[in-house]
């Protein structure tokens, strides 16, 4: 049925700072959602012409395709160090790194901690879906105890593989960060909360406040072997028990 929308108000549309490219993510994956929220934030703050995005290695390796912004694709785990170099070279530009749990909390552990500890005035988006999506569903540092992955086929055994790392809590022990928060996207309320958090994390940088990190509990329906709805439910009921939502650091709130 054709709809005449000319006389209506558009209440939701694609952010201007995103390109027209279709996302390459699996159906129901939250990466697209996070990308949309970042795009909306860049629009609202009017910073597209001075924002530089950093794409990691992982499912978001193509992140540079989605934004109408300058962007870099960088080595696995090094996004926070590259962001440091970029931001120090151009302090008046807005730099955000987009990193998965393997990138940020495993191979990039040192770079992540030390960028936070220096209080780099950057915005880090840390996407925690508790699994390595791109390489085929292997264990992540954040994989839950007894969660099955292709490298923990009997379920993650803490006796041999340790426990899921609450990386945001680790970083919250540092003196420098101004904002560290954990958010989720499993229902519209969380989506709206997460949107506010991401906006705050960018606004902090615009205001020169310092290091801001938004950890987002994301889903991987494909490698979790769940439907998108089941995956959301899993985050709501199970993942949030290990990774509680909320602000860990919020200075000058």
């Amino acid at each position, binding site marked *: 049925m054709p709809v005449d929308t000319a006389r209506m108000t558009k209440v939701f*549309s694609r952010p201007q700072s995103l390109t027209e490219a279709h996302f390459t993510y699996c159906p129901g994956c939250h990466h*697209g959602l996070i990308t949309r929220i970042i795009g909306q934030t860049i629009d609202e703050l009017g910073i597209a012409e001075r924002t530089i995005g950093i794409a990691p290695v992982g499912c978001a390796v193509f992140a540079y395709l989605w934004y109408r912004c300058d962007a870099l694709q960088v080595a696995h785990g090094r996004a926070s160090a590259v962001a440091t170099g970029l931001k120090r070279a151009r302090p008046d530009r807005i730099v955000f790194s987009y990193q998965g749990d393997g990138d940020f909390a495993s191979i990039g552990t040192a770079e992540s901690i030390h960028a936070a500890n220096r209080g780099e005035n950057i915005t880090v988006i840390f996407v925690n879906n508790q699994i390595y999506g791109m390489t085929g569903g292997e264990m992540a540092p954040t994989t839950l105890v007894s969660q099955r992955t292709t490298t923990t086929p009997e379920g993650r055994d803490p006796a041999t593989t340790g426990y899921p790392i609450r990386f945001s809590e680790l970083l919250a022990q540092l003196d420098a960060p101004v904002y560290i928060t954990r958010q989720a996207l499993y229902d519209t309320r969380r989506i709206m909360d997460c949107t506010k958090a991401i906006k705050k994390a960018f606004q902090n940088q615009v205001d020169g406040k310092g290091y801001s990190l938004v950890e987002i509990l994301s889903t991987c329906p494909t490698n979790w072997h769940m439907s998108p709805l089941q995956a*959301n439910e899993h985050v709501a009921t199970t993942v949030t028990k290990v990774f509680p939502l909320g602000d860990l650091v919020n200075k000058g709130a």
Partner: protein
Amino acid sequence: MPHGVVVVDGERCKGCGLCIAACPQKVLAFSGALNKSGYDVVHVEMPDACVGCAFCALTCPDIALSVYREKTRT
């Protein structure tokens, strides 16, 4: 109640169904029609029920939905 309209970009939709679950008015449903990528895309099943709350669009990971609302209440 305000009246809203949801427009689905059938080629962006991957048929994940998150929007269907998010809609409080049960406006959306799977269409049974496949797009070029082979996904069963969502369509507007109950247009009159839409209030233009945009929960569906907020939830959509592929930005496949646009939402409009009438300028004045009817």
